[in-house]
């Protein structure tokens, strides 16, 4: 099924098709990895919305990427609950191992590292979302094994 068909199928589930903009943007991002101008236009075309409108909505939300990102994403919670039990050491361990700062992607295009706000897993800090799936109780010592695992996927 083409992206347009997929978006229009999802839109039919809603009382008003404009409500499907978030799922549509998510589908486009899943398809292309990030939301290029062309991807935004495709979403707009499918939902009968202008690209400017789609961009204004997309830019409001944190989960959309407007430039290419790595094949994998690593998102470390750095809000206070994880911070109290050393989330910064986990983030720094990723920074050291990857030799990039939060917000950056490795030169080989493999991994994007980010610090993120509370992921809602405060009882098992530090929470790290790897390709959008939570890892619980991550310690700085776990970092090399996680990266090894990702590079082999």
């Amino acid at each position, binding site marked *: 099924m083409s992206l347009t068909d997929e978006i229009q199928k999802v839109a039919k*589930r809603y009382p008003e098709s404009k409500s499907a903009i978030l799922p549509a943007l998510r589908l486009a991002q899943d398809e292309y990895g990030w939301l290029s101008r062309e991807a935004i236009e495709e979403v707009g075309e499918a939902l009968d919305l202008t690209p400017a409108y789609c961009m204004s909505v997309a830019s409001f939300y*944190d989960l959309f990427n407007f430039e290419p990102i790595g094949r994998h994403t690593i998102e470390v919670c750095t809000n206070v*609950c994880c911070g*109290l039990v050393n989330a910064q050491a986990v983030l720094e361990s990723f920074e050291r191992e990857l030799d990039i700062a939060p917000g950056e992607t490795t030169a080989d295009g493999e991994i994007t590292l980010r610090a993120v706000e509370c992921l809602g897993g405060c009882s098992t800090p530090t929470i790290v979302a790897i390709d959008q799936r939570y890892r619980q109780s991550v310690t700085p010592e776990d970092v090399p094994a996680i990266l090894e695992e990702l590079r082999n996927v």
Partner: protein
Amino acid sequence: MSEALVLGGAEESPLRDLASYRAVGGYAQLLKARAMPPQEVIALLIESNLRGRGGAFFPTGRKASFIPSPEKVAKPIYITVNADESEPGTFKDREIMLRVPHRLVEGCLIAAHAIQSDFVFIYIRGEYSTEYDVLQSAVDEASAAGLLGDVTILVHRGAGAYICGEETALLSSLEGERGQPRSKPPFPAIEGLYAAPTLINNVETITTIPVVLEVGPAEYAKIGAPPDSTGTRLFCLSGNVARPGVYELPHGLTTRHLIEEIGGGVPDGRSLKAVMMGGSSFPVMTPDDLDTKLDANSLGQKGYFIGSGVVCVLDDRTCMVQFALRVGQFYMHESCGKCTPCRVGTRWLVQMLRAVENGTASESDFDLALDVCDRIIGKCLCVLGDSDAMIVASCVTKFRDEFRAHLEHGGCPFGHDSSLDGLFAPSDQHAAHREVVA
């Protein structure tokens, strides 16, 4: 865990599939409810005095009673379940969706019967991927088993915006707009989603509805700290505590009991310095108030809030300026920018807190910060800015000596020994990233 009601049956292992939920009596309350006139279900909720578990503690039955009956409106009636759990320190709704997803579905269907709605949206935060899968599979299973009847349940995924947990912002987002709050009135019960009457409830609230029917409203109203804080609550215990976790307990135990007896106290021989109570949106609790009971009235008398059930423990290694700064950075990042006091105020507070942390502020800045807080509270469409102002003001007021020590010391008196030292905020990452791509 004999108190478990909302998580009842799932103490040992989750009840993810229909068969396992049925084995503990699942969906029996739906049948019971559907055999009653809708008004009667609302009356039961009112009698139980169940109140909203999302943070506002509004009586659930009364809220449902505000929804007009279908013959009085020419529009559909909607239910929107708020599963956009993003308040720092809150992780209970996630636990519900992972452990008792069918009880949430059953609650949705009972609520739908009560207000005669045939369309339920569950707005789940975009980061919850596994939770979405588990919940969607429960909805599909219930649908295949014919339990939904005429009701459609649509699980809608957000895309990363704390503000969308605010009810009117959630509606904007669900309508396909930027997730910005709207002015009230009109209230969602009258003009909500697509300008139609809409009931909005938190996941825990909706999931408690089958429990109320099962134990009976009169019995439910005796649990906890009646008359106002009835029933159980999923407390989110985290931070510097030996056994963090979600604990379902009746309202009315003391904060100390939860932290020390249930949570095993503060580890590593440290002492408790403060508690982020109710969530990051409320004043922090100081140790002298640890015997305050965890119910709305007891907390309210001391100037605290039960919020979304957050109890996050800060030990004596925590620099309270860093704590206030990091929380402030969160609100600055999440402010939608619609109302000036919040958009400007949250930024200003971060700048001032950073100056305190660096030791470059002056004593008069403390009062200026409190003044800024005062000029945010009650002056915006929603309470995002108020939330920032409340917690920051509580830190400035209750830990003024520690704030002052930063100025006397010319920087953080903890050196690099604070547990929050060097904590990196995503808002900084955006700034850093802009420099990188420029």
